[in-house]
């Protein structure tokens, strides 16, 4: 049986190589289909990982607490419509929620920043000392400000890469320079390593960090001391996030004296939530592209079926001869199935090559991140094989069910 299968495969290859043009045209559909599958999945996977990296760049185990809507006499203010979070909240949370590893806070505003004759509007963040480590920032030169800088509201600043690019000449060393933020002179003490875009597409590097105390007392001004734009808490482990979120909510509701029937006046989000949304978007895209690929594979399969049906008719007499010399129906079936499968496998292999080239080109030309996994290639190959089997079955069965006498007489 093994010998028969092996010889059948060889025979099918010979039959197909006799008619190269027809074979080539037949596999074209499969080539396009498999190529599309490879390209789409690779681009989809690449995009997914890029999103995951961006989410991770914001810190994966970070809990973001934002001021929420305040309902006053039934009128609900919008998000951030009121100052409801303070540094005191942060300190209380740190005390009462042991799962919190670090807690930080910040307030931001877009302000004009001037260095010499250059000016730039950057997001200026007034932050607590732990903020940078919670969000996973690192330095390319200089370093962070100290607890003492915070206590004394020192005029020191840490710059993101985009801010540096826009305020300094190329090659100029920012650390030690004096810049003006909203007319207040600040000494640059550190430059941050670039992080790229956030998951929302915002340039995370277009940023300047200054001590929170300096910000509220000298730059932003404040309605009351300690009001923050956002709190950032981190846990040691990602698995603790949900528990920590629940406890934070409880503590904040108590502190804000919210009745059980009142909505939260704050919003808690984690990067995991944000990441999920992006992953779902990516999956929708991948599924859509896969559907397109499936349609072209279907068309390719129908092409194979069509060519095989013609081939069965053309070779009716041959089939009769084979049956006369002792071919069983199963053997005839296997012979034609082998042709279908080999056709689709040739298409599959060519499609994999075409897909990989396409992916390479996409990466080089469009600069999209792509990832070709062995699973993708394997799945595409198996898929083409299944297409061959499925669409080969009908013509092969037709051949196998021929009556040998009629087949022999067929002209």
């Amino acid at each position: 049986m093994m010998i028969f299968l092996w010889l059948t495969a060889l025979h099918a290859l010979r039959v197909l190589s006799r008619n190269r043009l027809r074979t080539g045209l037949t596999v074209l559909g499969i080539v396009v289909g498999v190529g599309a599958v490879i390209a789409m999945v690779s681009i989809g996977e690449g995009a997914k990982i890029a999103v995951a990296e961006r989410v991770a760049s914001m810190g994966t185990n970070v809990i973001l607490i934002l001021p929420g809507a305040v309902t006053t006499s039934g009128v609900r203010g919008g998000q951030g419509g009121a100052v409801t979070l303070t540094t005191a909240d942060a300190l209380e949370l740190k005390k009462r929620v042991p799962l919190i590893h670090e807690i930080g806070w910040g307030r931001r505003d877009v302000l004009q920043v001037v260095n010499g004759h250059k000016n730039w509007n950057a997001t200026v963040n007034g932050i607590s000392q732990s903020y940078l480590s919670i969000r996973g920032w690192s330095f390319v030169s200089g370093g962070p400000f100290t607890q003492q800088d915070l206590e004394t509201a020192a005029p020191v600043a840490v710059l993101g890469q985009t801010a540096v690019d826009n305020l300094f000449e190329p090659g100029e060393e920012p650390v030690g320079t004096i810049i003006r933020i909203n007319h207040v002179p600040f000494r640059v003490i550190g430059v941050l390593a670039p992080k790229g875009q956030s998951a929302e597409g915002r340039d995370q590097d277009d940023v300047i960090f200054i001590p929170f105390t300096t910000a509220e007392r000298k730059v932003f001004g404040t309605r009351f001391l300690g009001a923050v734009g956002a709190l950032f808490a981190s846990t040691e482990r990602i698995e603790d996030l949900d528990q920590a979120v629940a406890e934070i909510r409880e503590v904040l509701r108590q502190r804000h004296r919210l009745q059980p029937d009142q909505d939260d006046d704050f919003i808690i989000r984690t990067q995991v939530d944000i990441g999920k949304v992006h992953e779902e978007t990516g999956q929708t895209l991948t599924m859509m592209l896969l559907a397109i690929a499936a349609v072209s594979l279907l068309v390719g399969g129908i092409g194979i079926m069509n060519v095989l049906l013609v081939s069965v008719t053309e070779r009716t007499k041959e089939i009769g001869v084979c049956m006369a010399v002792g071919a069983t129906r199963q053997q005839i079936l296997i012979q034609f199935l082998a042709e279908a499968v080999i056709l689709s496998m040739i298409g599959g292999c060519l499609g994999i090559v075409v897909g990989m080239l396409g992916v390479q080109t996409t990466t080089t030309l469009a600069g999209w991140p792509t990832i070709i996994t062995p699973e993708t290639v394997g799945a595409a190959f198996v898929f083409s094989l299944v297409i061959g089997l499925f669409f080969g079955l009908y013509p092969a069965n037709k051949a196998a069910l021929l009556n040998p006498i009629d087949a022999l007489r067929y002209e």
Partner: protein
Amino acid sequence: MSALVVCEDIWKIYRLGDVEVQALRGIDLLIEEGEFVAIMGASGSGKSTLMNILGCLDHPTRGRYLLRGVDVAGLGANQLAEIRNRQIGFVFQNFNLIPRTSALENVQLPLFYRGMPLRQQRVLAAEALARVGLQGREGHYPSQLSGGQQQRVAIARALVVSPSLLLADEPTGNLDSTSSQEIMDILSRLNKEQGITIILVTHEIDIAAYAKRELVMKDGRIVADRHIARDASSLSVETS
């Protein structure tokens, strides 16, 4: 000698729409091993139908067909295929070689369906080709061979399985007289020297004359069954 083919009251009835066609109407036949039988008769007399049944390509509607004592009627499609593969060799009027496939590979065909290893297939096929005088032409395609040579390839394909029964359906019908003679010489030699049982269908009397026994069919019945003494001088014909 032992009975190779035993037919007992074989009927074959086709339905063509509403019309019932009785192609065979009670065939009784006994052929022993080593016989060389010619079946003659007008077209529509049931010769080909009988050949198809003898070749296990078709089932009789009624009656029993024993091949080497085995009742063929009771066998399934796969067992019939195996009998065709191991016991029966076919030679057709229009050769029925597989186009664009070398002579050697055409002869290998029955062995291929046995799942025989390729090397062994080639050895046996080359031997069979040599037996019909085609050594050196293994690589030729049917289109490169004359009609007579093509028919010899077909004979080699029938021979390669060492069949108990060789069925030839008008093997010279498409050949000129020289080639016909060549083919008939080969068949006679195979019958005489190797004792292969041959059943031959033909229209032509001079072709039938190569056989040792002659059956004449008419309207689905055997109407004459003559044994022919094979010394050319006295053509004594016994009628059964």
